[in-house]
């Protein structure tokens, strides 16, 4: 095959460009191409999941049932969550990892490029299957993204396809994680010690271990669902001696680390951006790493805080409550370190910095509601109400999603070679921030006043806040059109310098903009000094 021949020749003239046409993408092994595909795919899923959210918010605009039937409403909430979690947020971070980790550690590519190709191309298949269930008999899955039995076993024809697509997503994530770990461990520039690695690389290293630890657990849980449905087992069926609650334990043993899988790389992105625009070294670099590790460890022993109402022994409830409260400590350390990084800096407020600052503010609000949810007696009131919906959207939208956007604006000039349109970026930021709060803040009130989550219609006392939330959701959705425009025009405008920003830290800024197809064919001999080493 010609590609093999090309690779054999690699050493002779190592500047060969990408393949032409569709082959470049189908057979891609270049980390930059694969990173681009991940990012485009996740953005497409973000829009699809977003449209589903707008269906939900349209129905909830007023009390009464105007647009969809309850069964379809449940399909929308379920699909929205699955698509956003596994299709938008996770692949976006993998895309950033693909693009940036090799450049940040001075490696020529990911360690396992062909597996890299697979881990990406499995995803469109998985989501093709998942989305196709919408047209199957009985409709798409409607049991919530948590897939609790016995309800999930009432899914129609979609059921085995749901399980299969979750398996595929898991395989993709595990392969991606293996690739990231091997790259970081084996392909760093020789002079880059572990503690000297950029924070984004660190947070991804920890995330990758989390992924390898918990994705198989999810796969096991859904496989047990499958055998319960089709092969006569009774893992979760009370009638056969099984226990429906066991599924929840297994699911959340995956699920809680999963939420940190979605936030640790975000911490990494923000920790890269704030020092650049504060023109100051990251405060407490080592403690950032320790805090992230601590969070990762704790995330394995708090899962049952999602289950305070299932009927647990008192000692169990106390344990999970204390463990959950503990997570606030390393999370606090992170927030304080970011603030200390800003302190006495010389800040400017380009779009990436704006998103990063909003992240710190709004993620912290989500952390506060998390702390409130940790208080078990209060959680008994909050649980499965809109208060929880408010909590996880604060940590996930102005949290993870804002961090992704911050990262995209931050590294885009490195990718394209041109500065994006700064005024449009700022407009995108301000509209997103205003509307995200308009959407999700009122949900705290709704939950406290007693509105359960996952309902298509509600009693009239909840009407006002729901109307506000729906207006906010449409505003947020429309604001993303600006991002689309900015991305489509990203290859025009003022050419970017190699450093792009004012003296940013890291190897990625030493290569030309746009970054050539191959970077660091030979590892860099000397690393640029860390900021804290510079004037000392």
């Amino acid at each position: 095959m010609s590609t093999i021949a090309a690779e054999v020749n690699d050493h002779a003239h190592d500047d060969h460009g990408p393949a032409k046409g569709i082959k470049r993408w189908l057979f891609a092994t270049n980390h930059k191409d694969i990173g681009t595909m991940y990012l485009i795919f996740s953005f497409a899923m973000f829009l699809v999941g977003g449209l589903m959210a707008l269906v939900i918010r349209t129905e909830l605009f007023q009390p009464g049932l105007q647009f969809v039937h309850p069964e379809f409403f449940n399909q929308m909430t379920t699909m929205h969550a699955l698509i956003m979690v596994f299709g938008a947020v996770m692949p976006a971070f993998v895309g950033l990892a693909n693009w940036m980790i090799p450049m940040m550690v001075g490696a020529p590519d990911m360690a396992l490029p062909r597996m890299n190709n697979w881990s990406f191309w499995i995803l469109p298949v998985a989501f093709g299957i998942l989305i196709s269930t919408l047209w199957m008999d009985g409709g798409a899955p409607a049991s919530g993204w948590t897939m609790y039995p016995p309800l999930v076993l009432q899914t129609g024809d979609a059921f085995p396809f749901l399980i299969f697509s979750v398996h595929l997503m898991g395989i993709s994530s595990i392969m991606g994680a293996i690739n990231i770990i091997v790259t970081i461990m084996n392909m760093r520039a020789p002079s880059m010690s572990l503690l000297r690695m950029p924070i984004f690389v660190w947070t991804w290293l920890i995330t990758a271990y989390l992924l390898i630890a918990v994705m198989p657990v999810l796969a096991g849980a859904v496989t047990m669902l499958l055998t319960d449905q089709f092969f006569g087992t009774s893992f979760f069926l009370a009638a056969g001696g099984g226990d429906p609650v066991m599924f929840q334990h297994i699911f959340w043993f995956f699920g809680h680390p999963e939420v940190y899988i979605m936030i640790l790389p975000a911490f990494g992105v923000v920790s890269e951006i704030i020092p650049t625009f504060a023109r100051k070294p990251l405060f407490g670099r080592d403690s950032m790493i320790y805090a992230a590790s601590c969070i990762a460890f704790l995330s394995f022993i708090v899962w049952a805080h999602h289950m305070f109402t299932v009927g647990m022994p008192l000692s169990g409830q106390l344990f999970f409550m204390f463990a959950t409260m503990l997570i606030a400590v390393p999370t606090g350390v992170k927030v304080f370190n970011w603030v200390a990084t800003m302190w006495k800096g010389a800040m400017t407020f380009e779009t990436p910095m704006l998103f990063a600052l909003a992240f710190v503010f709004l993620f912290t609000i989500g952390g506060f509601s998390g702390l409130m949810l940790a208080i078990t007696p209060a959680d008994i009131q909050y649980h499965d109400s809109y208060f929880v919906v408010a909590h996880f959207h604060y940590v996930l939208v102005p949290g993870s999603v804002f961090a992704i956007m911050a990262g995209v604006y931050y590294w885009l000039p490195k990718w394209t070679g041109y500065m994006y349109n700064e005024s449009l970026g700022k407009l995108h930021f301000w509209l997103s921030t205003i509307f995200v709060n308009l959407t999700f803040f009122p949900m705290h009130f709704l939950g406290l006043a007693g509105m359960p989550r996952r309902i298509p219609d509600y009693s009239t006392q909840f009407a006002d806040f729901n109307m506000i939330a729906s207006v906010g959701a449409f505003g947020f959705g429309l604001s993303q059109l600006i991002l689309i425009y900015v991305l489509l025009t990203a290859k025009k405008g003022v050419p970017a310098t190699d450093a792009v920003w004012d003296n940013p830290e890291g190897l990625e800024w030493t290569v030309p903009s746009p970054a050539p197809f191959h970077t660091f064919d030979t590892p860099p001999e000397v690393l640029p000094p860390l900021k804290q080493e510079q004037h000392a």
Partner: protein
Amino acid sequence: MKARWKPKPMLRQLVLILTSLAATTSTARADWGLNMPEGVTELSKETYDLHMLIFWVCVWIGVVVFGVMIYSIFAHRKSRGVTPANFSHSTMAEVLWTAVPVVILLALAVPTAKTLVRLEDSRDPDLTIVATGYQWKWHYRYQDEDMGFYSTLSLDSLEARRKQSGIDPFTVENYLLDVDNPVVVPVGKKVRLLLTSNDVLHAWWVPDLAIKKDAIPGIINETWFKAEQVGTYRGQCAELCGKDHGYMPIVVEVVDEDAYRAWVDTRKADDPQFAAR
């Protein structure tokens, strides 16, 4: 079609949100549904107090952290011609902002654990009701009375909830929060609630009683409440249970002892549905 747009309450609400950000008073909470209800049991009040405690703790931490951040954003900007400092460590600060949160958390953990212990203590009840979840209604059996009944969404809500029913939900009293047969319990008595399900998971939630507990097939869950105040308290199923999950409300009527006895007796005598179970 009748106009459903109700601008006035919404504006009022907006104003209220803004003012209540500055000052929360107990009347504001009760009237406008911004906050958790204090409820009518001792434990619901304790829960409410814990909720407010942790809320204010968060507010104060927020004031400090966001205060510093906002100050920094205004003072430490390049456009003011500052030169950036170069520090990146301060052992003092780092120890402090690890230790102080630990102390705050410990202080929070003690009262929380105390309430939790009391919540779990369902010994010596005055009466026991078994609530069973069905797709999509509740069944209640009064163990000591040898009677039981189903409780489903009331008829007027049932009609109005149909897709494009043309009925304005605002014209339906207690839209989606009313049932044909409410649960009736005596005031000041410890009611033990045993929960299970006939099909999928459900959850029994009445905010004023500060109770939420899952109804799980094959498992009997236990919880309890002691309502201190006569009245009608409404709640909903809180665990996704299929298409009509939003339509299986819970209504608890707390009445005095005599009214309770009278209710039991007439129900048993008059209504075969009640006596049968």
